């Protein structure tokens, strides 16, 4: 891809230094919507379970572009721009619903659930007067169709002409880890969203940053839910864009944090109601925590028995909505169901763990104001973007920038 006029150059050939203007340049933000989100990338749109029956739809976003995701009468899933062919009104203005066809409210043009324009009100006028010229082809301006692939109950879409097949895009090491979590038919437990006062990239870096987890999130460390000293690993896809970070549930007795005198170490801190942390090894592999991300904006989370997908919706250069959908499985028994509800205390805007990510990304957005010309340092675990046994590494963050530069042509 050619370098767009008005896009600033990356300061070096490395991804170990990131310029701060990348989080605050409004023109760049516009380019990202085109090149990253509407380019050759896969964006998570929704879960298949959110389209429970034929003739249902759900609205979502491809970057900042509104889209409609539908399940047609035959059960096939489609996605298209949420924009009328005529004058561009939103076709669906509800979060979700049932519909056999979609009628734009403005002039009543109609569409089938594939996004095909099926009717133009009074196209031939009334009593031979008015209406459209016979040669008009409004169909040519129909909402753009997304290429859609469903994988393990997750619906992804792309506008890119050269986006590789989803499973290839995910990579041989990441795809199986999605299947690992999505082990049974999904039961939706609910959702909410979090407005992050930061650029969207800061959140994706945060998710890929296995280094911060146990340093920012004292709750993790204190209760040894996740310490860098626990057995685990970091896997980055070849293109750098996708990753998983995982750790084994087995609490270690290590004293590295205490030795290093980390703020996050906190002996003699105990819960009055330890049942909060009770969990079961539902995946049978002893992995207590797996954070998985797919470039540009998808996250799949397993924290003990708390499962959720998260997707980002950029709202502006310094504002991002993070949409959480929490789920379990149809096969859950009452006990496991209750565990998931209780462990929901760990996640989301009020999560003992994840609330802090909301604070952290905002701190960077504000801390780097006035530092446009400066560089941040991404050198933990070296300079590479490869997988590592150690999570004391920013390899996945470097991977993110590797993929970003590729798609931005920077």
């Amino acid at each position: 891809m050619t370098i767009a006029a008005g896009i600033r150059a990356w300061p070096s050939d490395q991804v170990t230094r990131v310029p701060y203007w990348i989080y605050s340049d409004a023109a760049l933000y516009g380019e990202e919507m085109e090149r990253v989100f509407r380019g050759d990338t896969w964006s998570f749109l929704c879960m298949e379970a959110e389209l429970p029956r034929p003739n249902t739809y759900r609205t979502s976003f491809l970057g900042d572009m509104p889209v409609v995701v539908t399940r047609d009468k035959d059960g096939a899933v489609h996605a298209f721009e949420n924009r009328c062919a005529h004058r561009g009104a939103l076709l669906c203005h509800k979060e979700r619903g049932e519909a056999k066809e979609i009628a734009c409210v403005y002039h009543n043009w109609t569409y089938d659930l594939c996004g095909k324009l099926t009717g133009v009100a009074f196209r031939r006028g009334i009593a031979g007067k008015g209406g459209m010229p016979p040669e008009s082809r409004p169909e040519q301006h129909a909402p753009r169709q997304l290429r859609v692939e469903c994988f393990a109950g997750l619906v992804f879409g792309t506008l890119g002409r050269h986006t590789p097949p989803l499973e290839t895009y995910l990579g041989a090491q990441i795809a199986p880890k999605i299947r690992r979590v999505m082990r049974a038919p999904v039961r939706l437990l609910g959702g909410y969203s979090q407005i992050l006062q930061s650029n969207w990239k800061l959140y994706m870096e945060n998710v890929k940053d296995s280094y911060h987890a146990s340093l920012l999130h004292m709750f993790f460390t204190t209760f040894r839910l996740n310490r860098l000293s626990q057995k685990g690993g970091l896997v980055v896809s070849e293109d750098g864009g996708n990753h998983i970070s995982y750790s084994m549930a087995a609490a270690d007795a290590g004293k590295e944090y205490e030795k290093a005198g980390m703020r996050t170490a906190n002996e003699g801190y105990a819960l009055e109601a330890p049942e909060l942390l009770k969990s079961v090894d539902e995946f049978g592999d002893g992995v207590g925590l797996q954070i998985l991300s797919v470039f540009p904006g998808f996250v799949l989370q397993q924290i003990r028995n708390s499962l959720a997908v998260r997707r980002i919706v950029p709202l502006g250069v310094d504002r991002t909505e993070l949409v959480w959908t929490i789920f379990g499985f149809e096969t859950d028994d009452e006990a496991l169901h209750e565990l998931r509800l209780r462990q929901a205390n760990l996640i989301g805007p009020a999560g003992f763990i994840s609330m802090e990510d909301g604070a952290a990304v905002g701190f960077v957005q504000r801390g780097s104001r006035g530092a446009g010309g400066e560089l941040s340092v991404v050198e933990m675990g070296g300079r590479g973007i490869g997988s590592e046994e150690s999570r004391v590494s920013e390899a996945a963050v470097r991977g993110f920038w590797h993929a970003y530069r590729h798609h931005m042509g920077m």
Partner: protein
Amino acid sequence: MNFEHQLRVQDLNVRYAETIDEDRLESWPDFFRDDGRYLITTAENVAQKLPIGMMYATSRAMLRDRIKALRQANIYEAQRYRHVIGAPRLVEAGDGTLRARTSFMVARIMHSGETMLFATGCYDDCIVLDGDNAVFAEKTVIIDSRQVDTLLAIPL
């Protein structure tokens, strides 16, 4: 309607909100019964009959753990709330408990002074009166919006 109950519940709500707004969070769990149930969820989840919450506790001990974590473990920017609470609508459940629905608005004030309308919604409460005392057997905080700005550290 029972005017005394009306005023007692109103007073309970005022003291509850004041305890939060003045950052006396250590006393907040005392507004609940030992086995008190506390849930923060959204109107959207309630409408779809989806059970997940943002905060969920089934005992006063869990509420104390929440406060302890806020004080000792969690990182968040200094902030305060200001509750303004409507009058409760009471239903006498007969068994000495009251069900109350009460609308609220909560403004959040950052240490910098930045103020926003942070949450609106209603409390769906089950209140136990014994003698002069009144506590929550259940308190469900149903926020109208599914969106939360940045984080929700302090209980509502």
